[in-house]
């Protein structure tokens, strides 16, 4: 007993020492592979279609291998730099910056606020703190369509209409719900004694946050950053409605592909653009996936 300490790192992903075996490894790998194929297929289909000329796609549909003679990387270039979107023929490159300018600050801000809120709501109990937490958490469930007009009004009053700053604001406020939920549930597992010890040591509110809580936060920071980054990056409705022209994020440009636009559809270029738009969140998931799961089980599952 003496050696189990509350702050020991628990790694749920470290392979446990227990013996569990389904009789045949063959069945396991077979099943895993079948599933993997289903999961990979869509990505593969988009990827392959970025290489195929339009006539090829129109002739044989989306599920087909590129023809060795006609396959080309040209569409990537077009999607990046010269495809016409919203009347400007500069590809998706110009929206990339907007998406980054929107996503990064909103992610950082909502994460920081979430950390503070989580810290307060888990470690500084006061009257109605449970109610306040419940209220903040409810924000997670608010349908976006419902909030469009009120947000528009608020942004107008703040003079943030049609600005990326406005989008950052909206995403930050909406994000607070998630980050607070995650962080609070995570911090609950940090022993209260640490806070008491620090208070007796003479540390105040901020010093405890900086010296005790923050150094313990990386797992949950990774979770909220991944969650917020992908969520905000992939969101299109606010981007479409609250910004215009050259201020729009990349998803608002991509979203045209699902709509019934007129004119010929350049599926190959669109596929390339879709991949480009999906790269940052994909990268973040692949790079941080392990920590994401670890942090999530410590935070969300309480």
């Amino acid at each position, binding site marked *: 007993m003496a050696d189990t300490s509350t702050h020991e790192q628990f790694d749920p992903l470290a392979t446990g020492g227990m013996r569990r075996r389904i009789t045949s490894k063959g069945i396991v790998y077979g*099943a895993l592979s079948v599933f993997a194929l*289903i999961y990979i297929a869509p990505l593969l289909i988009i990827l392959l279609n970025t290489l195929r000329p339009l006539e090829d796609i129109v002739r044989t549909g989306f599920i087909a291998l590129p023809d060795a003679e006609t396959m080309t990387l040209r569409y990537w270039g077009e999607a990046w730099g010269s495809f016409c979107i919203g009347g400007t023929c500069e590809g998706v490159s110009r929206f990339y910056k907007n998406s980054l300018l929107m996503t990064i600050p909103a992610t950082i801000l909502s994460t920081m606020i979430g950390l503070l809120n989580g810290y*307060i709501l888990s470690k500084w109990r006061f009257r109605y703190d449970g109610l306040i937490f419940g209220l*903040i958490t409810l924000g997670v469930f608010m349908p976006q369509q419902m909030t469009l007009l009120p947000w528009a009004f608020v942004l107008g009053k703040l003079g943030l209409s049609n600005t990326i700053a406005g989008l950052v604001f909206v995403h930050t406020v909406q994000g607070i719900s998630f980050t607070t939920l995650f962080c609070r549930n995570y911090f609950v597992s940090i022993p209260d004694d640490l806070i008491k010890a620090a208070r007796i040591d003479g540390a105040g509110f901020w010093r405890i946050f900086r010296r005790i809580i923050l150094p313990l936060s990386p797992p949950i920071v990774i979770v909220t950053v991944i969650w917020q980054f992908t969520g905000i990056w992939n969101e299109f409705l606010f981007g479409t409605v609250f910004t215009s022209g050259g201020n729009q994020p990349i998803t608002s440009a991509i979203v045209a592909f699902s709509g019934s636009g007129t004119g010929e559809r350049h599926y190959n270029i669109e596929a390339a653009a879709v991949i480009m738009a999906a790269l940052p969140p994909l990268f973040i998931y692949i790079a941080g996936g392990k920590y994401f799961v670890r942090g999530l089980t410590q935070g969300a599952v309480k």
Partner: protein
Amino acid sequence: MQAHTPNSQTSQASLGQRLANLTPQMVLAPTIFLAFAYVVGFSIWTIWISLSTSTLLPDPTYQGFEEYAKLWGSKRWTVAYQNLFVFGALYVVGSLAAGTVLAVLIDQRVKFEAVWRTIYLYPLAISFIVTGTVWRWIFHPNTGVERALHDMGWLAAKFDWITDRDLALYVVVITGMWHASGFAMALILAGLRSVDGDLVKAAQIDGASMPRIYRKVVLPTIWPIFIAVTVVLLQFAIKTYDLVVALTQGGPGVATTVPAIVVYDLMFQRGQIAQGAAAAVMILVALAFVLVPYALWSAWQSRKEGARHG
């Protein structure tokens, strides 16, 4: 003797002390204000607008519950509302089931675990719009699997769920599962790894088979994970909009329409803001169906917990 030592300290705390005590509340205040404005303010605004005469633009003139009556008189809305529950249930249960199967498979100490995990988890990084679009390509008979099978010479092949009004909703469910089951898998896998090994050993000594051990011993012990995943997935289910728009646009007919689409359409396309707000309020009501029992349950749970420790 020591009873009345003159004391410079009054029984009141000093101003600085009291301010220091209030720091947490003061730091929290802006967030509370924002959250309050966002959750409560926006909800009340929506409720009010749903009772107003608003059409093209919000207009606070009171009208009553007429728009609710109109909303519930429309077939599209009843289908959408019903879809929300059918889709929500199937999507959550399906994702949990698929996630459990995947987690148990990966739990068999397979090689390259990180690779498998990443493969199953990556869809979560893909936006709903892209998810819907790609799966539309795959499901649509003219461009997807059916077409590919025809091209391969199997002309009798038929895979047209997406165009079948009775099956299209299941296409949405499957696509949703593709997106979310990796998330369920990841959390359940982490849960499996946290299960006490002695438990499994004990069950093995009792002579239980591995599938039985999972079903009867391991999975029941990690039920809180299932609850947590359910809450996160429900949140996706209730807000589902982009996925359906990209995948089926609510069709065939209105077969796959979901409430969020109706809200958006009424509020913005049709200039019936009051009715759209009424639909949004109904989404909140649907939410209450889920959240109120959950809140009561967890309150009951924590009271039970408290009773045990106290």
